[in-house]
């Protein structure tokens, strides 16, 4: 018998206290005590500590955080910036928004430490515009932190100055891509830029900039407080630490589950109360619509960056979407392709044109009007987008179809003669009783 992986609430540990979002609620549990530790260490050793902890970017890419910080040149005479990516918009991703609502001060404390480490005196939180309550919550928390002396001039007598501006987007998935976010923050259309140069060298206003995800930065104070070896004790050697997982969809108790990397989907499903009663798992996506689908046979794959790649997918945001046997894969894929078409920024031709073609073909599969030829045509379009656009949105758009085709080819073949609505009862997928009863 293998031991199950226990949950490890850290960022979420006090969400059952209604004032967890306030300065008092945060300080009651050690909040802001890591600042003096970080200031005593100095910038270089703080970066070393984060490197040693093994913390990797929690926005999806999993790039080592300490290494990213160390790429910022020192003594270059230019201003440095920290930009926190709070644009959470990936379909399925629902962790940063709750985190900022319930524990905004962890993000602020992490931003102070990160800014100190990379020697930035100006930091931004860029939050998607569609969540006004999260934006006002963050702004209020920044004000509280400022009034308490944790922001502004000479923080806690350290000589370090920092101002944080909470700013917002206005409805554009692409702005979650770091270079598009920087374009948006500079006041332009949210178009991605070619890398290199990477933001660490030429980011905001062409100055050295670190762009990190909300969860990544929020983890920093806990690591500084408890030590690198405390953090990398959890997880695996290559994917150390603790992560916010989410399970949404056809489960009995969907929600947020904070656990060490390496937990399996079988364990998470158990914590989420299992697949809704009377149904069985059909397919799931470990971290957003931009990662290939998996099936019940993958339930025991450890949820780490490496193991998910080995299984033919990606960990992504680690916010899993779960669908039962009532759901047409073709319908779901067509929905995500509609999303990428809607969100393509239009800069690169393969993505701009290809996403429209893909969506058109996908609609034919849903309607049962596709041809045998369309099966390969759709694959061709995907391979012509993949790797041929400036940013990862194009790659993401090219991901859902080939991934689903691998396991559910038969369903796409059925799309050449039978509409998805004739094969699956859409009403049966609905989770509220009142409609299903009709």
């Amino acid at each position, binding site marked *: 018998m293998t031991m199950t992986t*226990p*949950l490890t*609430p*850290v960022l*979420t540990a006090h*969400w059952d206290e209604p004032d967890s*979002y306030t300065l008092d609620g945060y300080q009651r*549990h*050690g909040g802001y005590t890591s600042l003096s530790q970080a200031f005593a260490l100095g910038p270089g050793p703080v970066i070393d500590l984060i490197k040693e902890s093994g913390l990797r970017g929690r926005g999806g890419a999993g790039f080592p955080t300490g290494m990213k910080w160390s790429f910022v040149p020192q003594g270059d005479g230019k201003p440095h910036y920290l930009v926190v990516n709070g644009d959470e*918009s990936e*379909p*399925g*991703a629902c962790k940063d928004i709750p985190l900022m*609502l*319930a524990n905004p001060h962890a993000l602020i404390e992490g931003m102070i430490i990160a800014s100190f480490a990379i020697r930035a005196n100006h930091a931004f939180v860029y939050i*998607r*515009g*569609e*969540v*006004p*309550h999260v934006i*006002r919550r963050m*702004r209020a*928390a920044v004000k509280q932190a400022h009034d308490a002396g944790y922001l502004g001039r000479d923080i806690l007598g350290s000589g370090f100055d920092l101002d944080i501006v909470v*700013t*917002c*987007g*206005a*409805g554009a*998935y692409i702005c979650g891509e770091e270079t598009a976010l920087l374009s948006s923050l500079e*006041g332009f259309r949210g178009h991605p830029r070619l890398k290199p140069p990477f933001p660490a060298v030429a980011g905001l206003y062409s100055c050295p900039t670190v762009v990190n995800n909300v969860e990544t930065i929020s983890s920093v104070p*806990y690591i500084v*407080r*408890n030590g690198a070896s*405390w953090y990398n004790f*959890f*997880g*695996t050697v290559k994917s150390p630490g*603790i992560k916010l997982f989410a399970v*949404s969809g056809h489960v009995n108790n*969907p929600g*947020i*589950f*904070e*656990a*060490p990397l*390496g*937990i399996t989907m079988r364990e998470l499903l158990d914590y*989420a109360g299992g697949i809704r009663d009377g149904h069985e798992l059909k397919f799931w996506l470990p971290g957003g619509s931009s990662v290939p689908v998996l099936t019940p046979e993958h339930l025991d794959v450890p949820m780490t960056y490496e193991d998910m790649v080995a299984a033919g997918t990606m960990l992504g945001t680690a916010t899993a*979407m779960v669908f039962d046997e009532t*759901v047409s894969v073709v319908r*779901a894929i067509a929905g*995500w392709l509609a*999303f990428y078409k809607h*969100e393509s920024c239009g800069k690169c031709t393969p993505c701009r044109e290809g996403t429209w073609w893909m969506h058109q073909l996908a609609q034919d599969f849903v309607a049962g009007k596709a041809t045998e030829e369309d099966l390969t045509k759709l694959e061709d379009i995907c391979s012509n987008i993949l790797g041929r656009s400036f940013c990862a949105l194009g790659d993401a758009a090219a991901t859902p179809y080939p991934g689903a085709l691998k396991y559910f080819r038969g369903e796409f073949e059925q799309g050449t003669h039978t509409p998805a609505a004739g094969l699956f009862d*859409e009403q049966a997928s*609905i*989770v*509220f009783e009142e*409609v299903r009863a009709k």
Partner: protein
Amino acid sequence: MAIAEETKAELAEIAARYPRARSGIVPMLHLVQSVEGYVSQEGMQAVAGVLDLTVAEVAAVATFYTMFKMRPVGEHHVAVCVNPQCGILGGDRIWEVLSDELGVGNGGTTDDGKVTLERIECQAACTNAPVMTADWEFLDNMTVERARDIVSRLRAGDPVQSTRGPLIRSFKATARSLSGIEDDGLADQGGNNATDEMLAGLRVAQARGMVSPDGRSSNRSDSESGRVK
């Protein structure tokens, strides 16, 4: 409606918060939208004036972002998430019903000018699917009946409470909040807004005796861990 001098002063105030003024353009456009219920030509002129840009440069930005509306929006903006997770779990059905009953399509406004209906993509609340928003405030775990009730209340001027946020005000009021020009005093609404879904993992951990490993915050256990090395 002309953009008042007072608004222009507020636009300048927002621009001044950034190392480079142009960085304020998105919040500034939210402010413009809060005045007229959409981003008008005059609104863009006002932003261009403050930032010393051409109107074309401002329009290029304004038209990129879906939250900026080029036509007047109703008193309330009601949005239904139709991204696959929400759509399949019931969002598509909610959309059909609301669209049918209100007699408006995507982006359409009811004859009484009360409600503009929009199909939206993922709202980062998938654990609470199906999700809607009213004036961009969260309405979690929606059903057709709840959606109907909310819309009829909004049209009648009756109070509607966001599930993770304040009482619904208006599209314009939210736009003003987003601009950040002043504290709207609503940041404390709903405590920490922890839904059952946000607490799901913590409750399992508590019920099964799994302790928080954060040394400072509770009884750290040195023997128990999630070690899977």
